[in-house]
């Protein structure tokens, strides 16, 4: 009973911890925290996806510019000399207007008023132009301020102040034409009317005035101006053909002031209409005119033409690519603009090709320029332009080639760099540009790699990073690059390489930097990837109970983790890393290292899930060490952490503590050395955890251990407590069942048989289907029988008999019969059950004999002569048949002889009548002989008691015979000698019987003493002998029957 402990545990909070209820008794399915957590979890920190920084815009390929939308500069730019002060001019104009206005008022009725009007109208036009210029300038400035964010509202261009003057001018010119229709200045008036109408938006009126002018005054100097104005009108509206028509009219006249203008604008109209080659020719003419003007006299016309030529030179860059191949560019430009200016233009053309997206042509020209002067400061920029062109579009191989060429030729260690080393500013900027270009290229490539996850791209990116670090030794961006290289390698699963790069960031120690903390963390995460897997840990640690040294990779991780925790004790991921480290210490049995780390987690991050895991591991460490006292102490410490109060974890820890306490008790019990200590541990647990769900298990185990320790009364107490406790499940029910059973045996063991019987019966009643229940009914029946509780005994015997399927189940009939037999008051019941027993077909021969014999005896006692005779005969017959029960058969035989033969013999009286006397004696002698023969049969059974009984009965019979003869009435007729003779004859007849009687009685006594068959027969023999021999004194002495009980020293 003892020896099997109930419960199983394992600390696990459910965790774990540790204890999970298991099978009843000692078959423990231990499951520790370690078992539960026996998978090596990776750090729960999810490695952040770090966005690559935006790469610089200049690395983007320029969007193709629709160069056909390009227009030449406004023609106004060519009207005014550079450096003119508009403000001064406007002031003078105002004064002139004031003066002339006064004149017009003064001479408003004069015939010369027309001239004053025209002059004032001209001034109004000038004034309007100046105002417009001012307003336009203000507007442009305001727009720039708006676009730069300095001004909130977008400006609006309001030219009304200028238009007021245009309108005044129109009024004056209209008056002039009305009043002086034949004045020679009518053409001028028409021109300015056209002009002013255009200015105020009355385009049709304006166009009509110009048309009127060109038709009425074809030779007027204002015709070219009108045509130019009309050309400009259409040009502005992108009506290239009508515009060209008006420009062409002017271009026919080489002497026209507007000749170069008209050519230039006409060239643009041709360009716009696809006649590029012709347009280019016109530009060449404009350039030629410019050259001529440059070498000629000074004047406004000359200046305008030179400026116009320089614009045309610029525009050649635009027109050229449409007409000629890049390879012809140098020759063409040398011819058109001269060898001195050509290189600059070639550079512009190269850039123009860049803008056009013509990488080949641009590269061709840049390469040409580089070849021309490989160590020039510009050469590095030209190669940069090539790199830029291919940076994000185009052939990536070409790009990388050009990029690397750029870095090789202009980067650190290059010849170019040596040649230009004195230009420190250039060196610095070139280093910066190379670094930024290379960096941005790599980061862009990395971005692509991140998006595509393509191995190829990853490898390209990796090459890029390698290039970067081999070229760039000093940069403020090294941290960034090492960090992202680490990220790339991490993605490529090169965790060692990744960790190295993260560690470089960390080693630079720029703690305020953007990448420092993340690098420390990622270094941890990368190094964590190389630590052993769960199965490897299993292999490494195996069944080792001692601390196992970390592998080299684990040491790297350990170092990184410690660094992170130290640097960022309040970092977002610190608890996860601590937990990882702590758990690894745990798995490698490095408990002394594990405990402070895990405890730190619980103390500082009580709300984290890791704290719960840590608490589990802490508790399990103690559990593994089987230091349950320590476990309970640490559980108390954990529970004292303020942040844990009221939490689920606290509840779990409390539960583990409780189970530990139980486990401690269990451990004490398992040691087997001191069951009392184990029992006391359970009792302590019971007292400390009055609401524990392990309470009943503890009570049960306390009871078991008390029992084992010999403290049976305490065992009984706790078994009883188990019984009365509220049931809470199947295990409880099982405990109760066992307790009930054990209680019964303990009651029996402690001599409390009445309680034992009651407990056995109660168990059977409670668990009728239990395989032991019937046996317990039997036990109860036996004890009740012993206590003379017959009804209870019979009830339990019957239950046993009815329930049992064993062959011997009917043996209880015999037992019940014996019970009734012993009680003596119920012989019929005894007979009934003996009969039932005999009819049950029992194979027990001895009991069969005894039952048969007892039935005979009981009938006999009830004076049922026939029945008793029948049953005595059955006894004899069955003995003969079964071969057992000699004593019963012998006694049965004797009883029959005594009852029938002896009685019959005694009943024969010897009459006084002499005639019948002889006959009677003869009959009696015959019966005596027969009796003796029967007694011989009794003796033949060789049963000591019945031998004595038979000899005694024989002696008694002989004595009776002797006495009967002696006691026979003496015939009254006999007297004297006859009487003497008679008496002598009687003596002769009776004497031998007496003698034989004495011999028989003595034989009976001797046989009894010899065989130690002490019963009433021997007493009877002695008594008869006393009478025969006249020795009454001995018989009269009274023997005191007193048995001595052994008190065993009590």
């Amino acid at each position: 009973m003892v020896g099997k402990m109930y419960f199983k545990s394992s600390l696990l909070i459910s965790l774990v911890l540790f204890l999970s209820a298991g099978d009843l008794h000692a078959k423990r399915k231990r499951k520790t925290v370690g078992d539960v957590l026996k998978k090596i979890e990776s750090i729960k920190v999810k490695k952040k996806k770090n966005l690559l920084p935006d790469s610089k815009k200049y690395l983007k390929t320029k969007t193709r510019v629709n160069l056909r939308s390009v227009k030449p500069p406004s023609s106004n730019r060519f009207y005014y000399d550079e450096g003119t002060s508009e403000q001064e001019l406007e002031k003078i104009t105002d004064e002139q207007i004031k003066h002339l206005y006064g004149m017009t008022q003064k001479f408003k009725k004069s015939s010369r008023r027309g001239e004053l009007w025209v002059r004032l109208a001209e001034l109004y036009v000038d004034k309007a132009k100046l105002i417009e210029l001012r307003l336009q300038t203000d507007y442009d400035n305001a727009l720039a301020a708006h676009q730069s964010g300095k001004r909130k509202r977008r400006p609006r261009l309001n030219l009304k102040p200028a238009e007021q003057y245009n309108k005044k001018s129109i009024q004056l010119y209209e008056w002039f034409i009305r009043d002086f229709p034949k004045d020679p200045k009518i053409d001028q008036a028409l021109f300015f009317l056209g002009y002013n109408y255009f200015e105020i938006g009355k385009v049709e009126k304006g166009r009509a005035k110009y048309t009127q002018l060109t038709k009425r005054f074809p030779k007027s100097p204002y015709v070219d101006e009108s045509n130019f104005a009309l050309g400009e009108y259409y040009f502005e509206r992108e009506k290239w053909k009508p515009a060209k028509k008006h420009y062409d009219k002017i271009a026919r006249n080489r002497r026209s002031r507007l000749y170069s203008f008209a050519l230039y604008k006409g060239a643009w109209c041709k360009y716009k209409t696809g006649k590029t080659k012709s347009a280019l020719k016109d530009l060449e003419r404009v350039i030629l005119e410019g050259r001529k003007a440059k070498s000629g006299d000074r004047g406004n016309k000359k200046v305008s033409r030179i400026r116009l030529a320089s614009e045309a030179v610029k525009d050649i860059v635009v027109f050229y690519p449409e007409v000629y191949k890049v390879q012809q560019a140098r020759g063409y430009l040398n011819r058109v603009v001269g060898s001195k200016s050509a290189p600059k233009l070639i550079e512009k053309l190269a850039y123009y090709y860049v803008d056009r997206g013509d990488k080949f042509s641009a590269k061709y020209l840049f390469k040409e320029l580089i070849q021309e002067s490989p160590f020039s400061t510009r050469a590095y920029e030209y190669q940069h332009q090539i790199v830029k062109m291919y940076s994000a579009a185009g052939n990536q191989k070409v790009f990388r080639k050009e990029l690397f060429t750029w870095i090789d030729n202009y980067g650190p260690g290059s010849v170019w760099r040596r040649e230009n080393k004195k230009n420190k500013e250039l060196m610095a900027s070139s280093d910066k540009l190379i670094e930024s270009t290379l960096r941005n290229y790599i980061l862009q490539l990395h971005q692509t790699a991140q998006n595509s996850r393509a191995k190829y791209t990853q490898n390209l990116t990796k090459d890029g990073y390698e290039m970067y670090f081999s070229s760039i030794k000093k940069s403020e961006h090294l941290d960034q690059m090492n960090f992202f290289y680490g990220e790339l390698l991490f993605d490529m699963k090169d965790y060692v390489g990744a960790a190295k790069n993260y560690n470089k960031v960390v080693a630079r120690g720029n703690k305020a930097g953007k990448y420092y903390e993340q690098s420390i963390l990622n270094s941890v995460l990368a190094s964590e990837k190389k630590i052993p897997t769960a199965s490897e840990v299993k292999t490494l640690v195996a069944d080792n109970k001692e601390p196992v040294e970390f592998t080299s990779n684990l040491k790297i991780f350990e170092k990184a983790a410690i660094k992170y925790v130290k640097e960022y004790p309040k970092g977002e991921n610190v608890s996860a890393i601590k937990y990882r480290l702590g758990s690894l210490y745990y798995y490698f049995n490095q408990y002394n290292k594990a405990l402070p780390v895990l405890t730190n987690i619980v103390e500082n991050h009580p709300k984290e899930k890791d704290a719960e895991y840590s608490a589990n591991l802490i508790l399990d460490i103690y559990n593994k060490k089987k230091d349950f006292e320590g476990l309970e102490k640490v559980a108390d410490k954990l529970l004292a952490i303020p942040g844990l109060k009221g939490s689920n974890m606290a509840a779990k820890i409390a539960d583990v503590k409780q189970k530990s306490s139980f486990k401690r008790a269990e451990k004490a019990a398992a040691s087997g050395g001191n069951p009392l200590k184990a029992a006391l541990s359970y009792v302590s647990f019971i007292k400390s955890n009055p609401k524990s769900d392990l309470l009943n298990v503890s009570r049960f185990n306390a009871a078991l251990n008390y029992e084992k320790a010999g403290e049976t009364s305490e065992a009984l107490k706790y078994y009883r407590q188990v019984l009365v406790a509220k049931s809470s499940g199947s295990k409880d029910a099982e405990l109760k069942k066992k307790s009930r059973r054990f209680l019964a045996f303990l009651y029996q063991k402690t001599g409390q048989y009445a309680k034992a019987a009651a407990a056995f019966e109660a168990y059977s009643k409670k668990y009728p289907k239990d395989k032991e229940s019937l046996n317990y009914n039997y036990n109860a029946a036996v004890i009740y029988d012993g206590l003379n509780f017959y009804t209870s005994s019979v009830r339990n015997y019957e239950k046993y008999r009815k329930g049992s399927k064993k062959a011997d189940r009917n043996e209880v009939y015999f037992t019940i019969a014996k019970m009734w037999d012993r009680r003596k008051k119920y012989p019929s019941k005894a007979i009934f059950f003996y009969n039932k027993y005999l009819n049950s077909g029992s194979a027990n021969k001895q009991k069969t004999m005894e039952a048969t014999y007892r039935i005979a005896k009981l009938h006999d006692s009830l004076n049922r002569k026939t029945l008793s005779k029948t049953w005595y005969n059955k006894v004899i017959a069955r003995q003969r048949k079964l071969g057992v029960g000699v004593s019963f058969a012998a006694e049965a035989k004797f009883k029959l002889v005594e009852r029938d033969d002896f009685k019959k013999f005694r009943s024969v009286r010897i009459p006084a009548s002499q005639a019948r006397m002889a006959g009677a004696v003869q009959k009696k002698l015959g019966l005596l002989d027969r009796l003796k023969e029967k007694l011989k049969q009794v003796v033949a059974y060789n049963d000591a008691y019945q031998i004595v009984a038979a000899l005694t009965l024989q002696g008694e019979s002989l004595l009776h015979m002797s006495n009967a003869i002696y006691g026979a009435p003496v015939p009254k007729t006999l007297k004297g000698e006859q009487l003497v003779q008679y008496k002598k004859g009687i003596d002769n007849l009776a004497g031998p019987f007496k003698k034989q009687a004495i011999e028989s009685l003595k034989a009976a006594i001797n046989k009894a003493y010899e065989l130690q068959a002490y019963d009433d027969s021997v007493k009877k023999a002695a008594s008869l002998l006393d009478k025969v021999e006249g020795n009454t004194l001995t018989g009269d002495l009274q023997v005191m029957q007193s048995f001595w009980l052994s008190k065993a020293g009590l």
Partner: protein
Amino acid sequence: MRKLVLTLVFILSVSHPLLAKSVDKSLYKGLSKALATKVEANVVGAASKILSVDEDDLKALNALAIFYYESGKHGLAKIILDRAIKAHPEFTDLKNNLALVYFASGDKKLGLLTLKDAAGDSSLSEAALNLSSIYVEHRDYQKALGPLSKSFSKVKGSLKSKSKPAIALTNNYGVALFGAEKIKESLEVFTYAHEAGVKDSTLLYNYAMLLTHKGKNKEDAYKVINRLKFLTDDQKMLRKVELLEKTLDNKK
């Protein structure tokens, strides 16, 4: 009892205390006091305290058995004695008690066999003494004399304390001596008892008979007869005494 025995075997085999504990003597005193009360609850309570410590405790089991024997609950007495004998097979006195249980249950044959087994070769034990009583009762005086003689020499000192067993033993010893025709020794035993102040009417009657029939001094017989007449109220005994007195009167 088979089932019970089987189960007991199981219990004993697995739950025997690993650490034997000695029973505090006070518990035995408690048991003695409880036995004196003849109240079952007291006796069982006291015995269970001892058996809680040592389930095989001889004294407790035996006391419990004797209590049930004397209470007429022979079946339980037998169960307990069987248990005790199993635990202490060397202690033959338990068999003596078991034999008495058999006798009390009416099974004289088994009782006698058990008693003989208990007595063994010993002539100085309760079993030998009880066997002697049976011998005397059945007039097998020769067998009875040895044990009775040895026992008498041990108990005669306690006759003055009116110990009933000692008186019975003395009486039976006297009877056995007489039956074995050792008249003088028989008279000496009865005289010793008489002089020790034994007031048992049976013993005194036997003594009176011997003095009457075999004594040399009638006065001695009268003294005993008179004392007997004084001591007993039993009418049957008084009639027998009167007859004896007449016999004495008629004796020359």
